[in-house]
């Protein structure tokens, strides 16, 4: 049963071999796409074709094969830039979202932060949006402050504005959609306020870019980080989008091949954007795969993806309400949240929940979701989390509910 007019998961599922029903095993009910998404055949095929038809190192070879490899690699950059409406010279391939954030923390932070400067993150940040700043703060003497959240799991904008006004905030690093709470943060509004006080803004789009229309040109942020494997692409690749005028003024991060225009014994000059920030052989096949994933998402339409997931979350809220004592964290309004649904049961530890629903091949996550400060704020050590995507429909939620009942009766028996 399709939840919206534009996306029919039963049809899309045919593109995902891992979700196919094989033999008499029950099909996989994959509800862990916030951790990593599954990959359509088109993405896997594009990578195989790359290796079998044109594998060569990029940017330097003059022979046909190398030209072809370079062309496919750079075309993938165009596809990714187009997806988030970013300038291609500001679209940098990294190894994951984590490296993208570290790139800014190290390349900009180590050279620009002074003792006393403030970096603002949020209590709902993923560790990848916290730890790089803590490391750089330790090196530079800057301070990291955490914007608090309300009991509903939303950011307190007044606190943010107050702190921007009263403290020397140089950088605001904020997650667009929380992987642990689902909260959609008003990042454009935060960017507007931060810019009034000359702070830079980095948006962690790891959970937004795969799931809703995100236009860098309209975000107003200076940087946007996201990761390939959560958006139908392969592992081993992520993206940092930056405003070219800011990237231009930054010194490079990783040094090595590709990112130079000249290397002398007494110093070196840098390549143009985006290559200045891409040291060494890039993830070539991975970029090709991610390019196809971006095109695949654009074909479906990110607006349609968002509508589908909103409907899926609504349905899940209804269905999960059936289960005695089940508590859902974060905003209760489906309009204010993305796909991840964190929940707990009073009588079952999240580990046991996740392990026991796996008996029915329902895959959900249990743990701190790389958001330990948030867990402390919520007063729990862990939650269970179900997160859907384009290939999930109401039947997957039904399977989860059924498996939760079964888990409870198993443990109660």
């Amino acid at each position: 049963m399709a939840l919206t007019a534009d996306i029919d998961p039963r049809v899309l599922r045919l593109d995902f071999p891992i979700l196919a029903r094989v033999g008499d095993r029950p099909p996989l009910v994959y509800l862990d796409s916030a951790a990593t998404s599954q990959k359509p055949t088109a993405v896997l095929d594009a990578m195989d074709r790359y290796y079998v038809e044109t594998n060569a190192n990029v940017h330097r070879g003059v022979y046909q094969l190398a030209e072809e490899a370079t062309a496919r690699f750079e075309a993938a950059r165009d596809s990714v830039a187009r997806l988030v409406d970013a300038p291609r010279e500001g679209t940098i391939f990294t190894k994951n979202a984590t490296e993208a954030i570290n790139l800014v923390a190290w390349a900009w932070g180590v050279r620009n932060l002074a003792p006393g400067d403030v970096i603002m993150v949020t209590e709902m940040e993923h560790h990848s949006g916290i730890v790089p700043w803590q490391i750089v703060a330790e090196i530079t003497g800057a301070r990291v402050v955490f914007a608090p959240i309300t009991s509903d799991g939303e950011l307190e904008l007044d606190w943010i504005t107050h702190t921007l006004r009263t403290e020397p905030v140089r950088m605001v690093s904020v997650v667009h959609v929380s992987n642990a709470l689902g909260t959609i943060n008003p990042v454009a509004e935060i960017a507007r306020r931060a810019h009034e006080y000359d702070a830079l803004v980095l948006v962690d789009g790891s959970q937004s870019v795969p799931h809703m229309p995100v236009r860098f040109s309209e975000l107003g942020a200076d940087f946007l980080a996201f990761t390939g494997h959560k958006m139908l692409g392969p592992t081993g690749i992520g993206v940092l989008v930056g405003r070219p005028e800011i990237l231009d003024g930054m010194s490079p991060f990783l040094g090595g091949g590709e990112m130079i225009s000249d290397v002398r014994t007494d110093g070196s000059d840098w390549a143009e954007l985006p290559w200045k920030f891409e040291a060494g052989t890039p993830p070539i096949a991975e970029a090709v795969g991610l390019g196809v994933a971006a095109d695949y998402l654009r074909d479906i339409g990110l607006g349609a993806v968002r509508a589908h997931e909103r409907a899926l979350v609504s349905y899940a809220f209804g269905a999960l309400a059936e289960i005695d004592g089940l508590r859902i964290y974060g905003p209760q309004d489906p309009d204010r949240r993305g796909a991840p649904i964190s929940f707990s049961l009073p009588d079952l530890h999240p580990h046991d929940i996740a392990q026991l629903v796996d008996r029915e091949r329902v895959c959900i996550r249990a743990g701190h979701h790389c958001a330990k400060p948030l867990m402390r704020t919520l007063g729990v050590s862990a939650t269970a989390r179900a997160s859907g995507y384009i290939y999930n429909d109401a039947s997957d939620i039904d399977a989860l509910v059924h498996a939760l009942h079964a888990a409870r009766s198993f443990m109660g028996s």
Partner: protein
Amino acid sequence: MAGLDDLYQQLILDHYRRPRHCGVLDHPTIAVDQHNPLCGDELHVTLRIDDDRVTEVAHTGDGCSISQASASMMSDAIVGHTTDEVLAMIEHFRRVMHREVAADEDQLGDAIALEGVAKYPVRIKCALLSWMALKDGLLTHMVNQQEGR
């Protein structure tokens, strides 16, 4: 799935539902905290040692069935043993979890039922949590003893 029923054996569920040695000792010889980096679970273990022998133990904290049951089984198993014997039991349990040896009931008592956890690498940390807390506590205690002399 037979595998999972192996993980969640009756004996384990029994220790989970009715954990032995729950609580906190007053004036313990050893008090130690341990947390599971995977899920953030925290465990607090207190121990009384008289004449180099564990005479009382108590554990408290948040945890999944495996970590709770393991703490309960461990507590049962160690009471009455010398610190050296307990250290040997801990090492044996660690090696069982890493599938280096088969479990020996004489050493582990009920905790032998946890052998099946070894097939679930992520859960091994849960099963080991209380044992590693105990090891930490005992080693610190022994170092302090030596230095005290």
